[in-house]
């Protein structure tokens, strides 16, 4: 007996003798399962459309006897040679430094951060790091709900009202470092403007953009400035189109606060045929285009992680750590010795506090 009926989307199912519908549904279920496994294993190579984690059971320094288990929630892929990559190095350092077990989940959407962090806690991780201010609410929530673990949150502020006793805050202000980058960019600009290109309009980043323009003015009072945002730290296609337009509008040097999207900027510069210097953050990216790369900076994440985790081991489970003046310059490329010396001099003055950089202009970009 053959029975036919309409199901989803109007297709016909045959449930009679010799029917294959059950087999098909099983195949579909298997397909979805395989797909999800591959998606989970693949995670995100270039940037964060999907997410992945190192397998929890095999993470960290195998065979360690330490009770210190650190899990990190990352905003992008560790392969970005930037924000997440740099922090993954610092996390790895905790294995040798403190015999800790470590793991991370990368490319985590903000909406999933709480759930993923809770999963880490369920798997026995007792120190959870949230590596972006975008995760701050999740970090706060996790700290309040789990008094037995310690949470480290990269934050926009060094203190908050009613800070939980198991919450560390790490603040990384971009403004001081961006001031130095703006200064360097103005010295080598191949056009009438120094341009800042950031990922997302966040207060800390807006302050960095303002500092960049002021650093540029300090080097060259007649230089113009322009600021723009791609809307995404990791989308090189958007960055490519935006950069091309900015070059046509007179940008002679770029200061970037982008991760994977940096490659789109470099591609646009190459396509323009002009030698337009660019400066980045978090890693020496001279390999992308040695002919135009000017240099960059990184915060001292190794020191930050070492200090904060060290204090947690010593039983201090709450506090704050300021990375802002602990940034380091990468080698400066494609400039004369005189220019290099001038940049180094300004860098030292910013670090020493001889040059005060305004980090409070977080509301909007003001072209000086």
């Amino acid at each position, binding site marked *: 007996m053959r029975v*036919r009926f309409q199901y*989803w*989307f109007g*297709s016909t199912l045959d449930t009679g003798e010799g029917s*294959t519908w059950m*087999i*098909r549904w099983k195949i*579909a279920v298997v*397909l*979805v399962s*395989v*797909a999800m496994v*591959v*998606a*989970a*294993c*693949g*995670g*995100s*190579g*270039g*940037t*964060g*459309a*999907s997410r*992945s984690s190192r397998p929890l059971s095999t993470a960290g320094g195998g065979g360690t006897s330490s009770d210190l288990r650190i899990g990190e929630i990352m905003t992008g892929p*560790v*392969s970005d*040679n930037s924000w997440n990559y740099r922090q*993954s190095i610092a996390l790895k350092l905790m294995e040798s430094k403190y015999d800790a077990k470590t793991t991370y989940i990368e490319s985590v959407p903000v909406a999933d951060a709480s759930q993923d962090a809770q999963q880490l806690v369920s798997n026995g991780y007792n120190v959870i790091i949230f590596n972006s201010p975008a995760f701050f609410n999740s970090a706060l929530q996790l700290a309040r709900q789990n008094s037995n673990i310690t949470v480290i949150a990269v934050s926009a502020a060094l203190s908050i009202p009613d800070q939980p006793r198991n919450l560390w805050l790490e603040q990384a202000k971009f403004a001081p470092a961006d001031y130095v980058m703006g200064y360097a960019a103005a010295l080598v600009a191949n056009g009438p403007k120094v341009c800042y290109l950031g990922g997302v*309009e966040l207060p800390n980043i807006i302050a960095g953009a303002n500092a960049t323009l002021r650093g540029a003015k300090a080097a060259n009072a007649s230089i113009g400035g322009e600021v*723009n*945002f*791609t*809307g*995404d730290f*990791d*989308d*090189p*296609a*958007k*960055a*490519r*189109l*935006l950069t*091309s*337009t*900015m070059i*046509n*509008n007179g940008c002679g040097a770029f200061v970037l606060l982008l991760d*994977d*999207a940096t*490659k*789109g900027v*470099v*591609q646009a510069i*190459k396509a323009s045929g002009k030698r337009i210097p660019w400066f980045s953050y978090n890693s020496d*990216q001279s*390999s*992308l285009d040695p002919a135009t790369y000017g240099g960059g900076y990184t915060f001292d994440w190794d020191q930050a992680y070492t200090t904060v985790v060290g204090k947690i081991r010593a039983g201090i489970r709450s506090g704050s750590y300021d990375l802002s003046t602990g940034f380091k310059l990468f080698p400066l490329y494609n400039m004369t010795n005189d220019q290099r010396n001038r940049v180094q001099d300004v860098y030292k003055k910013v670090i020493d506090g001889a040059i005060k950089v305004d980090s409070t202009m977080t509301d909007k970009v003001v072209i000086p």
Partner: protein
Amino acid sequence: MGFSDFFGSSVLAAAVLAAVPLLVIATGELTMELSGTLNLALAGLVNAGSATAGTVTYVLGNRGIDLLWGILSSVVIGVVLGVAFAYVTVTLRVHQVTAGLAMFILTSGLGALIYRLGIGVTSRAVQFETLPQLRIPGLANIPYIGKILFSHNLYTYIAVPAIGILLWLLYRSNWGLRLRASGENPRAVDGVGVDVFRVRYISIVIGSTLASLGGAYLSLVLTGSYSPESAIEQGWIALVLVIFGQWRPIPLCLGVALFGYIEALTPELTLKLSSVSSALFLMLPFVLALAVLVATFRRAVEPRSLAKTYEREVRF
């Protein structure tokens, strides 16, 4: 803002740059849909093609000649994934929406997996070699037009005419007629001796390969890098463009041109209207996509057997 801000040669040249992958990917989906196959894995196919092309190019040495192998590898992954999708939807007759979504999840992860296995996490920033700009002698020097049309790259010069030929074949050849008829009334086509399964297999493989090749453009022409976000975004926009084009070639091409133009104009607007938040302009392509869907979907007439599995033995 003046005329040149909207229609300057730089803006229009950027529009061509942005439109080419959309044209290739959307034509791939159109080919599949005309034969009755809705492939919701399109964005994932673009992603897999982009990752494969870039990774293979880089692993082989990242020199000019390796670009050829990178592009060929994207063809191979497109064919393999196309055959897999065809086997599941045509031979096994799994529902196309279910299979498409499963394949999308798979290919979303597959691209990243290929990148990680081939390149991994490196301390050195990775950039793929890209196809150089190729100014066509004589034509590239024509004022205004030269920069817009004749200052691109080999991929563009080959892809645009090839897509034109494919669209002509789809709508003006016997092969195209059989393919479109398979998407309208596969039973009737079967009745006159045309193998519907074969037609759908071929269309899916062609469509998947084009999607994958569109991905290769992103990594080996546009950005020199692999970004799942860019790839997947392009795939979904291309899917919308097929509806925008109402499954017809000229509206499809107009839609591609419009979206490419909006992509190129957005940075210009962002710079010139700096008092308006850049986030607003970044939404433009998506707002347009939504508006287009609302405006055109009710009038659009899709192939009658779109997304329906064909079973020769079933009696109605």
